[in-house]
């Protein structure tokens, strides 16, 4: 299964990951990730955006190691509030609240947190192995892709992201196009003609992704929290016996095994990742359980499966990002943006051209999982104490980091104003029921899809049938159309029904 070449590369990656600097950033990422996972209202997307300017002076591999640590660390952290307080620290741990909190009410918070940590570790370790095995051959295959294949793959990704997202698929698609429209601002790469710049020189090279992300995620999050008055309830429950007993392990081994596969493979799909993996795992466990009535009343399987799946899903989402250069969720989109800021061009050539970053980052994920296991179990009481920090003290600190972070991108005050504009856009979108994640994906994918589309049309002399003439492209196009039709048909049926009622 593992060739000697791959073993050499893993060893090379390990030698990069264990350098004191990278170990420190891995630890720091895991720590920050757990912290933001614990704190409701501050997610990994906003945290990565906030910390992005700090990484400008770091090597790309250290930055990615730290950001990856934040991503999977947040999944661990979110579990703590879900189990102890019935408040999901992260959207991906919503499902954990159902049985995790019930276990706490029955005095079994320790085993719930313990099995979540062990499940995440086991699933995460397998997923890293899968990432190492799958990403390089996928990148090799992607080298055969031409513009039509890329165009149809991105189209399929956008369709799936809209379809599998948490809100309305129609709204997600609209927002993705809105993001692409913002992505067209600036100089056209092929002709050099500026588009929609209205004479503002600062945006001549396009709108920077950092002010957009910070505005839409960091600042909007703070505004929403201030508006809704986020308050953390003090935890009085005593946590004891973090190690699951033999029966707990017996009940959990199946869910952990299945959660690993569900999480990893759903992580590979656009719009999949941690959130859908956790839900899918819970539904499956309940369906195949001999005692489905136990679910919702403190079944350890309802914690073990989803917790394994959400961590595995996070790592699975790295496969398309690192091998194809395509982000399939908001976090990998930001990570892609971070790579680009460091001058690394993601895509099929990423692994052959930057093996140090790929193998260094993947091996550090394994170390990160070990760090999280060691860090989390003994530190749970400390994380609980952090929940006591009043949000009115936390909010100004987040805002200050946003301000300084965004200003330090180019030392240009226009970036501050852009951040404020996009905070307004993000706030408006949330109020009107639009998810901001497809916007970021659309904005990041815009140059890729535009280039691929234009090049394909030039190659085919303007013929759209070209996308169906090449087998890989035809496959992606048919899939994309099928996904769109799947969600357009119920929409039309619903309309008909309403018309009938009105008649």
């Amino acid at each position, binding site marked *: 299964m593992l060739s000697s070449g791959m073993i050499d590369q893993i060893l090379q990656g390990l030698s990069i990951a264990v350098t004191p600097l990278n170990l420190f950033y891995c630890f720091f990422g895991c720590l920050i990730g757990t912290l933001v996972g614990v704190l409701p209202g501050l997610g990994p997307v906003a945290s990565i955006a906030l910390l992005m300017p*700090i990484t400008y*002076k770091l090597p790309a591999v250290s930055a990615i190691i730290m950001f990856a640590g934040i991503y999977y660390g947040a999944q661990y952290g979110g579990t703590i509030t879900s189990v102890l307080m019935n408040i999901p620290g992260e959207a991906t741990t919503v499902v954990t609240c159902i049985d995790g909190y019930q276990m706490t009410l029955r005095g079994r918070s320790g085993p719930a947190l313990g099995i979540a940590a062990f499940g995440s570790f086991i699933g995460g370790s397998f997923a890293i192995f899968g990432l190492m095995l799958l990403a390089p051959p996928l990148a090799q295959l992607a080298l055969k892709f031409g513009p039509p294949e890329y165009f149809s793959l991105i189209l399929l990704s956008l369709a799936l992201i809209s379809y599998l997202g948490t809100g309305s698929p*129609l*709204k997600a*698609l*609209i927002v993705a*196009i*809105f993001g*692409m*429209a913002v992505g*067209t601002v600036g100089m*056209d790469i*092929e*002709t050099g*003609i500026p*588009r*929609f710049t209205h004479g503002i020189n600062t945006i001549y090279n396009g709108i920077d992704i950092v002010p957009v992300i910070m505005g839409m995620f960091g600042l909007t999050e703070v*505004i929403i929290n*201030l*508006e*809704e*008055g986020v308050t953390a309830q003090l935890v009085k429950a005593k946590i004891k016996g973090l190690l699951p007993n033999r029966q707990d392990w017996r009940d959990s081994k199946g869910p952990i095994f299945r959660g690993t596969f569900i999480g990893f493979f759903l992580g590979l799909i656009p719009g999949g990742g941690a959130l859908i993996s956790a839900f899918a795992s819970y539904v499956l466990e309940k369906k195949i359980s001999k005692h489905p009535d136990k679910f919702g009343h403190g079944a350890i399987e309802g914690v073990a499966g989803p917790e394994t799946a959400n961590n595995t899903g996070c790592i699975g989402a790295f496969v398309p990002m690192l091998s194809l250069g395509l982000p399939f969720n908001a976090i990998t989109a930001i990570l892609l943006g971070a790579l680009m800021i460091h001058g690394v061009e993601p895509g099929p050539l990423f692994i052959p051209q930057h093996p140090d970053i790929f193998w260094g980052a993947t091996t550090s994920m394994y170390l990160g999982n070990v760090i999280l296991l060691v860090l989390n179990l003994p530190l749970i009481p400390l994380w609980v104490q952090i929940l006591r920090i009043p949000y*009115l*003290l936390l*909010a*100004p*600190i987040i*805002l*200050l980091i946003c*301000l*300084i972070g965004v*200003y*330090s991108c180019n*030392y240009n*005050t226009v970036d*501050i*104003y852009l951040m*404020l504009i996009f*905070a307004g856009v993000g*706030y408006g979108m949330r*109020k*009107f*029921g*639009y998810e901001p994640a497809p916007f970021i994906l659309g904005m990041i994918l815009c140059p890729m899809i*535009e280039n691929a*589309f*234009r090049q394909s*049309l*030039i190659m085919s*002399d*303007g013929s759209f049938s070209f996308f169906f003439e090449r087998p890989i492209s035809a496959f992606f196009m048919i899939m994309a159309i099928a996904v769109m039709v799947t969600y357009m048909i119920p*929409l039309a049926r*619903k*309309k008909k029904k*309403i*018309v009938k009622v009105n008649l």
Partner: protein
Amino acid sequence: MRKRDLISGSFFFILGIYLIGGGSKLQFGSFSTPKTGFFPVILGVSLIFLSVISIGKALASERSKENHLFFKTNSLKIVFLFSTMIAYGVLVEIVGFLGTTFLWFSSIMLILKSGSPIKAFLYGAFASFACYVLFNILLQGQFPRGFVGI
């Protein structure tokens, strides 16, 4: 959501028209030789198509009572936050990084926490000093010194 969907659908419809208009002014080219304005026009057409579906869906849905759209609570505080952040952008190059950060953080603490001014200034001093050490000294940022000189 009916009213909200109608408003947002109309916004995206207008944005679609803007994209088509803006794209048409640039070189559109043709399908065999697409130019600068080609992709924005395609996006505009797609946006108009989807927003029409969204508006249609909203019109077909039943009317329901809708809650407040913006700023349920703390509206003044949020407006103040935005204003101070604009002010930060204006002042940072005149007053300098340390001074502006101190003023900004102190005023935010004064408004959000509603505590005593001395406490707010102490928080401001600590936060600005910590940021100065982290961003300016440790990370060697090139922040403006302003007339204060630091």
